[in-house]
């Protein structure tokens, strides 16, 4: 099982190091195992944003943290596809250009994984195939309507 862990760690960190600069338009990122027995140590994340120096994760901004987390999440999915991924308002801290990058990546990943996305962001809504509207016509009781966005892909 140590072998399997090391293999999956290598696979994920390779994908993360490729995906991060794509999302940030440059810079670099890597995952590093701590000292000692690989089955016991923690995993460190080192990032360098384009034009900035290498720094601790804590100093990243709200939006930069969200984009780094998205890069890690999607690297896990690229290494081991899973049938479903649910994302509840993950785009809330993002500026417009990062929302567009997130949507482009969702579209690309949706070939191997089914995504269910909750959002208030108009740009994200427009990038979807279908909107499932939830309303409370009767106060306190949720109802569901579907809106098809005729996409000719």
């Amino acid at each position: 099982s140590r072998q399997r862990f090391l293999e999956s760690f290598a696979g994920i960190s390779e994908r993360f190091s490729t995906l991060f600069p794509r999302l940030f338009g440059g810079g670099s990122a890597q995952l590093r195992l701590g000292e000692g027995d690989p089955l016991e140590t923690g995993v460190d994340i080192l990032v360098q944003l384009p034009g900035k120096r290498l720094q601790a994760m804590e100093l990243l901004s709200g939006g930069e943290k969200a984009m780094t987390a998205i890069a890690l999440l999607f690297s896990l999915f690229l290494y081991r596809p899973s049938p479903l991924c649910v994302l509840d308002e993950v785009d809330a801290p993002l500026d417009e250009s990062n929302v567009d990058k997130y949507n482009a990546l969702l579209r690309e990943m949706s070939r191997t994984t089914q995504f269910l996305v909750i959002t208030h962001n108009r740009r994200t809504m427009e990038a979807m195939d279908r909107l499932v509207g939830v309303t409370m016509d009767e106060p306190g009781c949720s109802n569901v309507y579907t809106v098809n966005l005729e996409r000719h892909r």
Partner: protein
Amino acid sequence: MRLARLEINGFKSFANRTVLDLPDGLNAIVGPNGCGKSNVVDAIRWVLGEQSARSLRGRSMEDVIFAGSQNRAPAGLAEVTLVFEQDDRSPPPVAYLNYPEIRVSRVLHRDGASEYRLMNLPCRLKDIVDVFSGTGLGSRSYAIIEQGKIAYLIAARPDERRMLFEEAA
């Protein structure tokens, strides 16, 4: 396999029996604050076996049953069913290869009686977990990012992060 449909009845704000169809492609759930979007995510995690009421934003598990509104009495039970269809992107476990669809359900009555169901037949939670084992899908899996929790993936302590990699291994 892919999630084709959700059937929710009496779970949180879903007083009426509600069906969410999820055809292929990118689906977004949208609506005003407080209308019930995150309750749908809670419903998915509940069926997959979530045991902690607190992590479903309640004080006791009974809080997942529709508690009534100004015009409606509380419901007597909560029931959620996930319907998965065959999909060549990710095959189901071997035992289920011949089924066109896989139905998993969970029911909770106000008196506390609760039950899991697989293909409409009573089963144990372990049977449901087995269906999804190896696919990365589970009530606490990284595949379900709850509201406001995206940064947890990187904010966690290094030893907590290891869990992510173990799950994916």
